[in-house]
């Protein structure tokens, strides 16, 4: 590829040749499909996009795209992505995570990424389980879900990532379902286009450790109302919905965080004058 090549705008142009390690039937295949479809719709050249992730099944997604990617350490994708976007505002930076990586080990970064509001798109593939380590409970696992690590269930209430995102200052909050790749792609397009930190929770079934999640396709439904820009109203909706309400649920108007443009105003020698006596 070179600079004069026409813009790639077919989903296939954003897919790499690497075969995913995911189990057959994994929801993450559909997320990859939705992501490449969204990138094609946005018409962005692949080299202007960076997909950043942590550790877990979902975090394998960067290498399956034809974009720049970074598969970092467990839970730290958001600060890595923020560092990149802050110095390279010209890039489109997409962060991919799962419920263990993003909500448990990376929970603190989630709060502060929402607060900081760097212009990132955060896609969390939530299957309520640690898949890669073979079936332990995550922060979104139901309290009575029996696992080898927590016989009889955790007894601990799952948390609501959308409410936390809203309370922490996320500028865009949406829920999608992997089984609807077209709708998910549309939501991702809106998320990328929305300035500031855009959070998309994607229900992405784990057919291996959570075969019960096959029933999600019967439970999901499109939100009956349009996205609101009123945080109080959004909070009420998110607190009271059934967890399967899909669509863009909140659009804020906060200014994205971006330090002043990289323009040298001073000669280094001027700075050194401060030490002179």
């Amino acid at each position, binding site marked *: 590829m070179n600079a004069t*090549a026409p813009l790639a705008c077919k989903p296939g142009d954003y897919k790499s040749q690497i075969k995913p390690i995911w189990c057959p039937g994994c929801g993450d295949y559909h997320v990859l499909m939705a992501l490449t479809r969204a990138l094609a719709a946005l018409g962005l050249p692949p080299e202007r996009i960076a997909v950043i992730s942590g550790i877990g099944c979902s975090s394998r997604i960067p*290498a399956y795209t034809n974009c720049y*990617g970074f598969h970092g350490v467990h839970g730290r994708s958001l600060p890595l992505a923020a*560092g990149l976007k802050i*110095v*390279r505002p010209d890039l489109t930076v997409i962060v991919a995570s799962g419920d263990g990586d993003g909500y448990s080990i990376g929970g603190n970064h989630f709060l502060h990424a929402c607060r900081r509001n760097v212009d990132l798109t955060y896609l969390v593939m939530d299957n309520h389980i640690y898949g890669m380590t073979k079936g332990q409970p995550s922060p979104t696992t139901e309290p009575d879900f029996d696992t080898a690590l927590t016989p009889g269930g955790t007894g601990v209430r799952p948390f609501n990532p959308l409410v936390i995102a809203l309370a922490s200052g996320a500028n865009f909050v949406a829920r999608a379902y992997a089984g609807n790749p077209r709708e998910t792609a549309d939501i991702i397009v809106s998320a990328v286009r929305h300035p500031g930190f855009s959070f998309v929770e994607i229900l992405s079934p784990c057919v291996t450790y959570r075969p019960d999640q096959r029933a999600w396709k019967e439970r999901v439904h499109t939100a009956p109302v349009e996205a609101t820009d009123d945080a109080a109203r959004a909070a009420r909706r998110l607190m009271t919905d059934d967890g399967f309400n899909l669509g863009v649920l909140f659009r804020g108007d906060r200014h994205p965080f971006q330090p002043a443009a990289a323009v040298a105003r001073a000669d*280094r020698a001027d700075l050194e004058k401060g030490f002179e006596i």
Partner: protein
Amino acid sequence: MVGSGGAGVLTTGAMLLQAACAAGWNGLLTRSVGPQIRGGEAAALLRLATHPVECLADHVDLLVGIDWVSAQRFESEIELAPGGLIVSDPGAGPPPPALSPSGARFIELRLSEMTKANPAWRANMIALGAAAQLLGLDERDLAGVIRLHFEAKGADVVAASVAAAQAGGRAMTEATGELRLARPAQANGKRWLITGNEATGLGALRGGVRFAAAYPITPASEILEWLAPNLPEVGGSLVQAEDELASINMIIGASYGGVPALTATSGPGLSLMVEALGLATAAEIPIVVVDVMRGGPSTGIPTKSEQSDLNIAVYGMHGDAPHLVIAPQSVTDCLLATQWATFLAETLQTPAIVLSDQSLGQTQAAVSRPADLAFIGERLRATDFATPYLRYALGGSGVSPMAIPGTAGGQYTADGLTHTERGIPTSSAREHRAQLDKRREKIERYAYGALWATLEGEGDAAVITWGSLTGVAREAVARARADGHRVRLIAPRLLLPTRADEMAAALDGVKRLLVVEQTHSAQFHRFLRAHYTLPQETSVFHRPGPLPIRPGEIYRQLTAGASP
């Protein structure tokens, strides 16, 4: 100079150093404070000389006590020279016995009476004037410094402070003048007043760092607080992170984006950063992490110095993770070491840890302007792409061209998983070995040149030390040489990668070796034994912080039982 917190001891020390620096003397100022944010005890420890100085002396010639509240806590830190002079207010009572050995001489300075009679006068300004008079500083130089410090507070404050200092000077008329410093040599060029932490920040900037992520920690915060207003001036930026896990991952992200990046921390923060240091090693992302060491383990002694993070800096990462560890040897060497570390990290596409410590970072030195160095970070970028692009290509020096996001045709995924030359995850024994070899070879084979260590002198005896103890050992060695001993000084600046051949040459002919370090478990000695062949007659002088190791102690270790 000692006093309770709020007495203005540290400000006074800084002003005295500044006046001496302006007049052309060399010197340094170390502060010793308790953990309290306000209140508590404070000491400004100042050394002035006509020649460059890198550490405090064994003894104190002049002790100025603004008050003696809690001053007994400096018992082991401040040792008055035989016949040393104590200036204090009789109204504050006698100094603690530990600070006033028999033979000490006293000059009264009636601080409380003077401030009562002149309510606008501050006791610390009177004490400043007294000290300046004893040292023979010019009254006008001192007035200039006072004006600089207080002009924002108005002409009245300046006038009162100058008057207070002059009164303090007049009160010293009975002094004999023996503390009077010789006239300084004519200064060449501009004189600088700089702390190790500021020098670290400047070194980063000179080396090309344009992004920093910050999480505050004592005693490293001043590096970040110096960079915060200065990075934007040269087109860079600094962001405060939510924790050290975030700060190191932010700089990895920025560096992946093509911008040289740094963070600074201390032991507890370095502990949190170790996993991501491994990521930067495996994914071959250049970053610089400065660790300003303090007493450890755990929270330890945040305000005081130790060299006990050597082990974690060298061995902290899981897996086989070759990286750079570089230790500055003086306040001004913080600049050189950080600039060099930035240059090496960029050149070798690997993380560099700069091991500074509290005694360097928070010491302010009066020096000549540090020279410009040619080390400007320039990493090997990929611009011409074969299909497919091999980000982690084997062969050559081991440094493979790095594609920067935005460059068409260079798309790859940086990965902490063991990967192929293309960057694709693999668990193959062959690929794992090949990439481990690549990362080791690129830093092993590089020609680091003479900066790898300080090597001074000749003889069959040697002192080997590192970091902030280099200057202390240099002074001890100079004294031993003056007695006719032939002693070498060896101080590696480059701790990792180790330099077997260079060290063997440095130790060639050495029969007696003294290892000096500030740790409880002799970490440096164990490190040396693991990597180098040491003479049979090797002894170790080590103790933990926070009590600084003085030149005289090393001198005694060096000369005990040795005939010149």
